[in-house]
């Protein structure tokens, strides 16, 4: 199979197929040209059908069959030169001369062109032509892959796509890679249905294509071995075939362990300024109770009672203790006081449930462990989860800062837009902003997954270095530097995505293998 160089046009190399090429080479494919001591790898950016002898319309009008040669088609290609493998050292760049012969690149050449390594998350290089997506194959029909660099995880990622586009499945795949191959810890927040709750179970599919993909990676479907679901004691999970009771733990918040700042998340309908007082009031209370020797016996309800009593005893005048240890006195406005009290009373059920466990950073920062906090169940699940997440994030960062743990961690926030429902979750996103900026050095990675990238906190979006767009609105993806036509974007099949990958800039279109765990496809027998 050969293509011949015609020349250069608009900065791209123009090629035409030889007559034995029977089809179009889709966009995203790679071609190699070898000339004496030099080798060039090109990426196909445009691929068109050309009819050199175009039949006369009269043939159709008169209902006559066309001459066979008049049906001949050729493939015209515009390709970007992505890699020159040359021994030239005189400061010039080699010409790619007209009439040079190009062939489909093999895996090794594509690796060289993309600059990827053999380490990293394997994905398939994909192609697109009109509404068709395919995995790139070499001349022997072998699927061509690339490896997303492991460092990508610590440079923060954005995964976008409409429902059913494959973004959650891809996120699961990345999570499984992180725990199994990088020996890291994953903390995922399950906000929708049972998305992340079955990761301990092998995926199921009848699709031959997916099986073929797994085979090419030498992988079989398998669950994550060390997997735990944490769910609020105030919620209920419907355990079943896909969600196991054995890996699930009911959790509660521990008033003695919770970071005072995390309590801010409880407050709804209150100004930020007023909300800042609660952690200092709580810290003071906790400190004084400890001095009284009550450490280990404190309950959140005690704090609510204390807070309540201050209305009558001190006319809402509170003593406070800030993070630096400075004591002060403040009086809460009646409206603010009432609001805080109402929210505190409401949150009492989140704390100190004797039938449930409380967790901290040590439960999460374990090599090869995937932890999922299920906030999808129950009315206040997201509120609970957000307070817990914030608390955990503080602890994880602190543990890492103090070098108590060197376990890499990946935090997955699925369906980010749902995190705008409450103060608590917004606060958690704010903390993630800070982590995203400092996470690299401490091996903390964050994946933000959303249907719309505008859901991502504006601060965070500037530190995201990897963007993966499954089927989504092309105007949105274009604003993120992803060049795909509306038609190409609208017709992306499940699992296929346009991407801009950290340290792998030449990879533009990819297909994620289906996650080895937690995905159950019942009726795909293709």
């Amino acid at each position, binding site marked *: 199979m050969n293509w011949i160089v015609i020349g250069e046009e608009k900065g791209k190399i123009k090629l035409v197929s030889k*007559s034995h090429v029977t089809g179009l080479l889709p966009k995203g494919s790679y071609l190699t040209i070898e000339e004496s001591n030099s080798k060039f790898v090109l990426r196909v950016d445009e691929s068109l059908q050309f009819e050199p*002898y175009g*039949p*006369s*319309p*009269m*043939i159709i009008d*008169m209902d*006559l*069959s*066309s*001459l*066979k*040669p*008049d049906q*001949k088609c050729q493939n015209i290609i515009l390709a970007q030169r992505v890699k020159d493998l040359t021994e030239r050292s005189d400061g010039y760049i080699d010409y790619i001369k007209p009439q040079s012969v190009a062939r489909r690149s093999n895996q090794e050449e594509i690796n060289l062109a993309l600059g990827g390594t053999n380490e990293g998350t394997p994905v398939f290089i994909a192609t697109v032509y009109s509404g068709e997506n395919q995995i790139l194959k070499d001349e022997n029909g072998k699927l061509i892959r690339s490896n997303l660099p492991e460092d990508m995880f610590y440079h923060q990622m954005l995964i976008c796509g409409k429902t059913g586009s494959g973004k959650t499945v891809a996120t699961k795949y990345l999570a499984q890679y992180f725990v199994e191959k990088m020996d890291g810890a994953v903390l995922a927040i399950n906000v929708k249905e049972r998305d992340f709750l079955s990761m301990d179970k092998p995926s199921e599919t009848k699709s031959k294509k997916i099986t073929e993909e797994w085979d090419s990676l030498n992988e079989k479907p398998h669950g994550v071995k060390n997997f735990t679901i944490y769910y609020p004691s105030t919620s209920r999970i419907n355990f079943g075939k896909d969600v196991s009771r054995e890996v699930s733990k009911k959790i509660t918040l521990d008033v003695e362990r919770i970071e005072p700042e995390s309590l801010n998340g409880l407050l709804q309908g209150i100004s930020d300024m007023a909300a800042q007082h609660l952690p200092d009031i709580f810290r003071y209370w906790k400190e004084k109770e400890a001095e009284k020797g009550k450490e280990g016996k404190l309950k959140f309800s005690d704090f609510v009672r204390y807070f309540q009593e201050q209305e009558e005893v001190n006319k809402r005048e509170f003593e406070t203790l800030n993070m630096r240890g400075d004591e002060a006195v403040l009086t809460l406005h009646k409206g603010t006081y009432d609001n805080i009290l109402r929210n505190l009373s409401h949150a009492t059920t989140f704390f100190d449930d004797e039938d449930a466990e409380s967790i901290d950073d040590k439960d999460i920062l374990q090599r090869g462990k995937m932890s999922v906090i299920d906030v999808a169940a129950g009315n206040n699940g997201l509120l609970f989860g957000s307070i817990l997440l914030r608390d955990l994030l503080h602890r994880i960062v602190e543990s890492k800062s103090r070098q108590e743990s060197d376990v890499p961690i990946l935090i997955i926030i699925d369906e980010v837009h749902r995190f705008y429902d409450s103060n608590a979750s917004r606060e958690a996103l704010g903390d993630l902003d800070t982590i995203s900026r400092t996470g690299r050095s401490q091996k903390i990675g964050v994946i933000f997954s959303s249907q719309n990238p505008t859901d991502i906190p504006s601060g965070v979006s500037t530190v995201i270095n990897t963007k993966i767009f499954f089927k989504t609105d092309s105007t949105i993806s274009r604003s993120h530097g992803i060049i795909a036509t509306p038609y190409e974007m609208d017709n992306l099949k499940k699992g296929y995505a346009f991407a801009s990958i950290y340290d792998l800039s030449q990879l533009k279109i990819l297909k994620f293998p289906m996650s080895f765990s937690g995905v159950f496809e019942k009726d795909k027998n293709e």
Partner: protein
Amino acid sequence: MEEKPKILNKLVFHPDFRKVAEEINKSNIRLPPPVLQDLPFDNLLSNKNTKVTSGVEKEGKFKLDPKNGSEVMSSRIGVAAYDESINKFLTLEGAAYLISHSLTVVSEKDYLPSNFVTFNFYTKSKIITKDSKFIKYSEDPEKDSNKDYHQDRTNFIVNNVPENSVILIDGPLIGEQATAYTLKLNQMLLKKGVLPIFFVKNSNSDLVIENIAELKGKYNSDLHWAHEVLKVGERTCLFKYTDLKNSSNTKLFCYIKAFGKGAQRVEIHPETYEKFKWDIPSIMDMVYYLMIAQGDPFNPQVRPIAIAEKYARETIRIVNFSKLMNQLNITPTMNQARGF
């Protein structure tokens, strides 16, 4: 056309091509931009030495069946077509001719072109030819180039056309200086079992209207007559032309009207007719079909010849001869430099 002859899909240069160019350069001759040269115009006019008769087949006109033509096309072993493109360079020192001979075989899946490019320089200057092996001395460059052209054409076609095929050739079977060469070509093709058909697009000949009594004085030319009497998709009967001075100069011809505008003359040799008599009606249907397949009412021609013409022009363009000649420093005559 199952088997692909080795020569097809090839561009072959005459062995002396480069040497002629080098010698022009050595002689300090500068060539101007070329002009596209047509073959001598088909101006066979009726005179007392020619005779045209009907009676080869039933008189009148015949309706052509393009569907049958399409089936013939798809069932026949092979169809080929020939055309050429000629660039002429007029210089102070003589005339240069760059010719691309183009033969296209219609195969099952593709048009398989083969092209042969020649370059010759003719001059009356013995000073120039004295030291040259490849620049030709000529008293009449036009005549000598025509001779070389026909010899090259005959060899090229005969050597490359598939045996037992039909070949469609652009140009007349009988026409002034070309007659002897073309008749020889026809004979050689028949020996290979090839059925040659010749096509004349533009003609002012009046053989029919001057020789058939009832048509005399009514029409301006044969084409005028054919246009008036034929409906689209019809052909006239075959007429026989004989040169009374040289009875071997004979041909059969008819006119085909494929579109609303004009008609085209199709010529075959009587020996061809004798050999392929029973195939001729179907071959005429095929010719009509191939005109529709080309589908150009303003320039009606059969599709394979149109493709051969394209390749002829393209190979001339690929050679980029003007550039080569400009680099070789060759002087144009005044008219050619002005574009006359």
